[in-house]
């Protein structure tokens, strides 16, 4: 685990396939919603966004294309660069699964990665906490790695057990390691949900492959 030094409210969750990354990310979202704790009511002051489907909570499904669509939309109708503008994507938590799609280290100069970088670097102004999930931290673009203030490494020592071991590293805090039972979180998402490449990317790849044959 590498040290974290960022100042943004940005969490990176890493781990092997089946290691409990998505479970941990969804659990953080559910914890923030308050529905799993007395009085079991969702906290409506925090907007929940996720690029995967979540069940049992009120949230907005926000894949990359939707994120780009609503990036500059404001709640109070003011232009996004107005000092009093309240961004629509803000005042909440955004769970971004498969962070290497959209924030890929090897595509750091692409237009979609730029959108994510803009979101991350100005997350404080949006009052937005962002949680990135990735199999390896090096798959994520440098800005995200640099700005993260929390790093969670997930591990399932026994693949037949729902117990997930987390090693949490936060800026200015000691490392914590603890286990939790992932089973109570599984009902809130589907572990096999795919995050496909866009049709435009597939079409481009198809054209290249076709030209090569």
């Amino acid at each position, binding site marked *: 685990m590498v040290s974290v030094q960022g100042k943004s409210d940005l969490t990176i969750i890493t781990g092997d396939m089946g290691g409990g990354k998505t479970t941990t990310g969804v659990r953080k979202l559910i914890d923030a919603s308050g529905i799993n704790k007395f009085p079991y009511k969702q906290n409506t002051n925090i907007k929940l966004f996720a690029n995967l489907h979540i069940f049992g909570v009120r*949230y907005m499904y926000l894949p990359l294309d939707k994120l780009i669509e609503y990036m500059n939309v404001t709640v109070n109708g003011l232009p996004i660069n107005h000092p009093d503008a309240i961004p629509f994507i803000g005042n909440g938590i955004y769970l971004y699964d498969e962070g290497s799609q959209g924030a890929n280290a090897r595509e750091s100069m692409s237009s979609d990665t730029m959108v994510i970088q803009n979101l991350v670097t100005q997350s404080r102004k949006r009052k937005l906490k962002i949680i990135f999930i990735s199999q390896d931290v090096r798959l994520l673009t440098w800005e995200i790695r640099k700005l993260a203030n929390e790093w969670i490494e997930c591990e399932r020592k026994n693949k037949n057990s729902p117990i997930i071991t987390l090693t949490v590293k936060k800026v200015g805090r000691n490392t914590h390691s603890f286990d939790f039972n992932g089973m109570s979180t599984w009902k809130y998402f589907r572990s096999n949900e795919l995050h496909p490449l866009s049709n435009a990317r597939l079409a481009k790849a198809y054209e290249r492959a076709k030209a090569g044959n």
Partner: protein
Amino acid sequence: MANVGNTDELWEQLATQEPVKTDDSSNGDSYSDDEQSLEDYERDSPNLSDLQYMIKTLSPDFKDDVYNLLVKARLSPDTFKPLLKILVNDEIRRNRRNNKSIAKTVAKVYTVLTMALDGKHIIDLLEAFGSKADSSDLDAMNRGLGLGG
């Protein structure tokens, strides 16, 4: 998280809520909601410094006084093989009734002895302490030079 704007009209239109999935084969109490948040778990977990965490990771508890003592020993290479043989035989004899895996036993004893070989484990820990002290000195020096740290 600060409360700004509360919920808005666009949010009301776009946010959705679907019932929790019920097609999972899991059942029983363990499937019910866990009221402790991850932050609660984190707060209750041991508050270890990075160095303590590293030492804890490097120094597993072998649940055996002899093994826990051995990893702190300085084992000479010529005693490695005989000791490996003695300890494996002893462990197998003691666990004959438990049907314990021989491979696991050999791996465990081998781990203990390689840690103890030439006092490597102790040297590793001392080096870690040393590097920690070095980095603290460097930090202090950087602060003195106004370089942060």
